[in-house]
């Protein structure tokens, strides 16, 4: 390999055949470049009379952004095949970079495009990427690598394989709709929203468009346009209710009943919100025997009204269909 300095514009940055990382230079990175320029050489290789960047995309983008004109490069011998060259780029990053799922999908795509066989991809590369070494995982990753618009979000929010798999089960136009709904949400909320919409679609036998046109959801989407984070939480809450109507209804009834209780302020009533258990929990906060006596007396007095009975009935109620 030859170490030298070249003008950045000598590199054909349009040729992205070896790129699989999604990271962008952040403020700290740019400050470092401004202070000491790019110290570690990027790797390039000659292809069809131009220089192609093999690794060091973030450094090059940082250098351009900081107005540098030249940077150090290590030129890889051009007799290396694309597969060998990409393996070099991959393993160089592998040692010090935690790949996101989006990056893993792009790496697998590159290995596949450069001719690595399916068995090798599954048995070796997927293991290296700490993913289930199965044909199914390979298919999911190859599919994911084609999701141009979604990849930056998948990278940024560090999606897990299971979320990506479910996302890919939506038709393309529905994926766009989903992206427009949740791009600003946290990874967990994105995952939950995909899950909830998936379930609703299957349960109602409707497509996503029809579901978001339902009045409750549609009205929420209107707010969405004005104030995204708040609206997203509201949307999630509506979806949770739709997916879990029985438990929500019963919990609402119980909560309503509990609110009507006139209990001392130092007593808190609670219950299992999955309704697996039908008992109540009373938390009593007291700091003296006298206070305890008063509190117990107040609780006993409250037994005289019918609310407790009603509450236990609600917790143990049988459903009618």
């Amino acid at each position, binding site marked *: 390999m030859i170490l030298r300095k070249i003008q950045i514009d000598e590199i054909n940055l349009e040729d992205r055949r070896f790129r699989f990382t999604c990271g962008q230079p952040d403020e700290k990175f740019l400050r470092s470049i401004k202070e000491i320029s790019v110290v570690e050489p990027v790797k390039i290789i000659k292809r069809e009379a131009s220089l192609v960047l093999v690794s060091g995309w973030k450094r090059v983008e940082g250098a351009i952004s900081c107005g540098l004109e030249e940077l150090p490069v290590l030129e890889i011998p051009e007799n290396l095949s694309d597969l060998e060259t990409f393996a070099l780029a991959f393993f160089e990053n592998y040692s010090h970079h935690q790949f996101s799922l989006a990056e893993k999908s792009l790496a697998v795509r590159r290995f596949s495009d450069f001719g690595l066989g*399916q*068995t090798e991809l*599954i*048995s070796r590369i997927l293991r290296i990427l700490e993913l289930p*070494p*199965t*044909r*199914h995982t390979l*298919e999911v990753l190859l599919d994911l690598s084609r999701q141009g618009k979604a990849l930056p979000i998948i990278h940024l929010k560090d999606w897990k394989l*299971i979320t990506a*798999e*479910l996302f890919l*089960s939506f038709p393309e136009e529905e994926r766009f709709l989903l992206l427009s709904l949740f791009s600003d949400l946290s990874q967990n909320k994105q995952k939950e929203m995909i899950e909830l919409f*998936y*379930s609703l679609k*299957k*349960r109602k036998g409707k497509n996503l468009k029809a579901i978001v046109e339902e009045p409750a959801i549609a009205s929420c989407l209107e707010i969405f346009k004005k104030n995204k984070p708040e609206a997203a939480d509201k949307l999630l809450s509506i979806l949770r209710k739709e*997916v*879990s*109507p*029985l*438990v929500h209804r*019963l919990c609402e009834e119980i909560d309503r009943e509990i609110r009507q209780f006139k209990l001392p302020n130092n007593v808190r009533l609670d219950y299992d919100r*999955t*309704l*697996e*258990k*039908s008992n109540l929990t009373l938390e009593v906060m007291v700091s003296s025997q006298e206070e305890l006596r008063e509190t117990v007396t107040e609780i006993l007095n409250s037994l005289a009204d019918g609310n407790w009975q009603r509450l236990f009935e609600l917790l*143990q*109620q*049988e*459903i009618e*269909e």
Partner: protein
Amino acid sequence: MNQAEINKVFIDRKVEKDPLVSRIMNKLAGLPAEVIDESEMIRQKLRLTLDPVGESKRLLFLTEQKSFVRPCPCTPGCVGCHYWTIDLDINCPLDCSYCLLQSYLEEQPLTISVNRDALKQELVSFFEQERSQLLRIGTGELSDSLALDEITEDSLFLIELFRARRNFCLEMKTKTARIDSLLKIKPEPNVILAWSLNTERMIESEERGAASLDERLTAAAKAVSYGYQVAFHFDPIIHYPGWQGEYQRVIEKLFRKISKEGIAWVSLGSLRFPPDLIKVVRRRFPGGVIFEHEFVRSWDGKFRYPRPLRVKLYKELGRIFFDFGAEEKLYLCMESTEVWRAFLEKIKRGRPLSTFPFPWLT
């Protein structure tokens, strides 16, 4: 399972010379066979397929294992039923959408342990331990007890071992109608043939490769008239529009063919699954809807229908059994004390719980 559905047989070199291997291979004449040293190569092969679970059901692996008899793990926090299992075959040729073996067994071919001497020794020593009550042992935990029986003859081997062991009850649980070989031997009172039952709609949509309801009930009736006791497992009970009427019809059909005296026990269990299963099911059964119901994550981490709905399902089926005077046969599978209590209050009409929950074990 017929021979045509198995694509290939792998034989563990350690059991290559076992007489049972020869007998099995005679029954599978014409199928490609390979002697291997490591089962890992089968797993690798399966991982390269798009549907490892489906493909695993077409590869047969003859091997050995160290131990067979285990207490049924049930699930923490549930009322257990003192069940034991004999894990003789692992993986099942039937392909039920809700089967948790899909996520529990990773790339495991249909595995038959042929070291019968070891099984015999283990069972004999198990029988010699003092037992104060009747103990149930079944082979249907990690496979269907009879689906591969024509090849393995497991049932005949086990029945011979259980003969005259009155304190030990062998249960063979199936969704097939393959009982021909069992109708050629003397039935033993401690051998129970059991069928998992569901509505015709659910059998059709969720139990790929299994016998129809009529076939199962006809086989059960045949077994009873031959002298066997039978058992039934309504598990998983699935909630869907029209479930009440359809389960009612199943139970009516059951009692039209079989009198309650011929029935040893009936279990009820509703659809439940560990979180890992759902991604496999969504992939393998993309048109399925039973997993898109309302579920709660319950105390043991599994997803279950909300408790009020489960109680409703059990009480409704319990009511129907009550109408046939057969409520004493019922027990719940993998349920909490809370659900048991709600169920028993109604079904057993407030009777004391001294025999709770398994009267036949006392």
